[in-house]
């Protein structure tokens, strides 16, 4: 099979991911059918549950916030030619940073706590990405393996800390005490209430705005600055980077630090905005969903936000589905996520060639078939 066929931009970034998504959904429908439920009913329930009510939309966007952060993290690394599988661990340790600020500075006013929490989350997350990055840049150690290892090490570390060090005295479950109210991220429904709009109470909080800001930042950084330019050159053609006087090892480490920092902001949404304490395993797989989001969003911030909302809807819809259809549980959502990764990632060339053929034919109807 020779080089993949070229597609016009709108197809590459719009139609092809859409087709891949549809394929993933179709296959999921088949599985639903196998289980003995109606795929159409399931789809309707999911759509209803995620987008059909204020409650649903709130939860959808709350989930989406996590995925925006991790999706951006994976995408930034990808543009530098790296596969960051460690977003899960970086989010976990990053949340530790944000959480510590909240625990320690709970009596400070919110607008002082927030920037420090953001900084701490970013720094801790970046720190967790540093060693795998350095090892890849200087020793050539495969970053996929090292980041997977660091996910496990991070999990062990956080478990230790939550069970032995940070645990609220006198309680059984491994979590910290609750943050002081000054360290709570304002919920969106509370903010809306202040301007007279009623909105259903959900964990949907201000971190969503921060996530959008992060997306804007990534967009500007990667495509509008000279460092982002250097990053993309290293990712596309390391030989050209060397020719241009760019130093790939530095760029690799820098990209991973930024990637880890973005993942580390997940705690702002999950801990400051929802749990209001540090709990075990709070990323809950968001690091891996971030891979799916980045792939579907073609590693572009706009695509990532859209894909993140989609996966948020999937998460919320799946939750709703498991309530209403006893035969299906939240694991079905994981299946759909996996299928999306499969089609948008590994099998992306499956539909590329037929699509190119189809488009070529439509453009020359008089070529005489």
């Amino acid at each position, binding site marked *: 099979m020779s080089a993949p066929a070229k597609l016009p931009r709108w197809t590459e970034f719009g139609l092809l991911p859409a087709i891949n998504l549809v394929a993933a959904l179709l296959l999921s429908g088949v599985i639903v059918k196998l289980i003995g439920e109606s795929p159409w009913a399931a789809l309707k329930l999911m759509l209803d549950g995620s987008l059909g009510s204020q409650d649903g939309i709130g939860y959808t966007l709350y989930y989406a916030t996590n995925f925006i952060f991790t999706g951006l993290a994976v995408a930034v690394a990808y543009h530098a030619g790296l596969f960051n599988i460690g977003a899960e661990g970086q989010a976990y340790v990053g949340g530790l940073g944000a959480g510590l600020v909240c625990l320690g500075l709970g009596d400070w006013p919110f607008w002082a706590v927030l920037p420090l929490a953001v900084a701490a989350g970013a720094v801790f997350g970046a720190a967790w990405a540093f060693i795998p990055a350095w090892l890849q840049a200087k020793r050539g150690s495969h970053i996929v393996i090292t980041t997977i290892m660091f996910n496990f090490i991070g999990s062990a570390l956080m478990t230790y800390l939550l069970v032995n060090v940070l645990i609220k005295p006198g309680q059984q479950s491994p979590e910290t005490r609750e943050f002081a109210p000054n360290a709570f991220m304002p919920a969106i429904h509370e903010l809306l209430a202040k301007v007279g709009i009623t909105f259903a109470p959900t964990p949907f909080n201000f971190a969503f705005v921060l996530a959008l800001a992060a997306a804007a930042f990534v967009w500007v950084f990667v495509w509008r600055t000279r460092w982002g330019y250097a990053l993309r050159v290293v990712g596309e053609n390391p*030989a050209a980077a060397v020719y*241009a006087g760019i130093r790939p090892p530095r760029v690799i480490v820098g990209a991973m630090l930024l990637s880890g920092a973005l993942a580390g902001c997940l705690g702002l949404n999950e801990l400051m905005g929802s749990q209001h304490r540090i709990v075990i395993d709070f990323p809950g797989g968001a690091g891996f969903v971030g891979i799916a989001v980045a792939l579907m969003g073609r590693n572009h911030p706009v695509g990532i936000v859209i894909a993140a909302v989609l996966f948020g809807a999937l998460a919320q819809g799946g939750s709703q589905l498991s309530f209403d259809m006893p035969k299906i549980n939240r694991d079905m959502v994981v299946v759909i996520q996996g299928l999306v990764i499969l089609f948008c990632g590994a099998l992306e060339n499956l539909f590329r060639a037929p699509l190119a053929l189809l488009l070529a034919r439509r453009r020359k109807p008089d070529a005489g078939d």
Partner: protein
Amino acid sequence: MSGEPDAPPALELRGIDKRFGAVHANRAVSLAVARGSVHGLIGENGAGKSTLMNIVYGFHPADAGEIFVRGRRVHIHRPHDAIAAGIGMVHQHFMLVENFTVLENVVLGVEGSRLLAGGLARARTELERLARDHGLEVPHDATIENLPVGLQQRVEILKALFRGAEILILDEPTAVLTPQEADALFRMLGQLRAQGKTVILVTHKLREIMAITDRVTVMRQGAVVAEVDTRATSPRDLAEKMVGRAVLLQVEKKAAQPGEVLLKVNDLEVRDRFGVSRVKGASFELRAGEIVGVAGVSGNGQSELLEALAGIRAPSRGEIWWAGRDLVRESVGARERRILGLAHVPEDRLRMGVVAKFSAQENAILGYHNDSTYNRGWLLNRAAIFADCEKKMADFDVRPPNPRLRFSGFSGGNQQKLVLAREIEHEPRVLLVGQPTRGVDIGAIEFIHRRLVALRDAGKALLVVSVELDEILGLADRILVMAGGEIVGEVPRAEATEEKIGLMMAGVREEGRR
């Protein structure tokens, strides 16, 4: 010479034709190699020799033509068929598994049975026999990566003989050998000939042809231009045929007015990533207002020289002087060299000079992206970049003049013009250019040549590396010839002739040069 005079040739090719896209690599090539002889196949880079031999060995199918082995027609679609026909090939880049032993490499693919023990024992016996008969000694249980290159090559030869090769093709075998190893190889080839084997030696080195071959075929631009008995020819004769009397691309230019020395290179040694020395003690100067051409067959150290000068590869020895500073000792990188005024148009633009997926305007700032002209504070100044690219496209007649178009969407000529524009429009004091017109159409070639001369006339120094001798002869005021990593000759344009340069390119030294 052995073999009965009326015996059919060991190998005969009739009308072999092959195209790769627009490139006509082999034009109706016909060739006959007598049994029990060493036959040379000589020509410049791109002459088509390697393609021809790859067809014979089954790597590519020919578009047309026939192959006969010992008088019988054979159909060769893959290496398996060639091996079955008794043809073996030793490539320039060895096909060995580095962490296997010699025995394991020899036996791979022809193990003889499911269990290795039997096959290995059989191989051992056979290798001992080959050692006795042909003098090809190798330590059977040594690991390949621990063997010197000369012995590794011997393993490749043994692989072929083990599979029953009667015809042995060697592609540029001495490219990686020391002179002593090369002599050992020739002795071995002589012995093979004495045993009745047929050897085809593909090379561009005249010395080897004269030393060991019985007959030689000369190829140029895909076609056979001569086939003679080695005894009946001479190096000068062969060089002439190799290089040919192609029409010289005349470039209109005034005489050069060389000024001050801008770059001085002293005893430069550059090693490749395997530690092999590729540039061995080069010394020369570049003066303002002068074009220095570097002639030579590809692979003789020119690429490494360019990379060292551009700051991409650190030399292992030597100095590069620029305005009183030794760029080597101060570890001045590629980025700083550009700022100083040393620009570089790479030999392989797609591999290292551009990012094919980026747009034209994004490529137009590669290497200069930190410049204040392209940045406004933290952000890239998109308007300035766009306008700058438009100007470059206008100045260099790049079509279509669309800065947003993906770079790979431009033709070769326009791509090269854009790269040149990028390097020239920053007004370097010295410009290094590798293969300025590779993959470029005739119209653009002329344009590029004129621009390079204009740069010279503006008082800049240029170093032009090219495998096209015509281009060197057309552009250069002074010509350096590289062969085997050394500068084997330095000739002012007025004294340069094709034969003279061709001889030097093939390794025959200029009188008086050590």
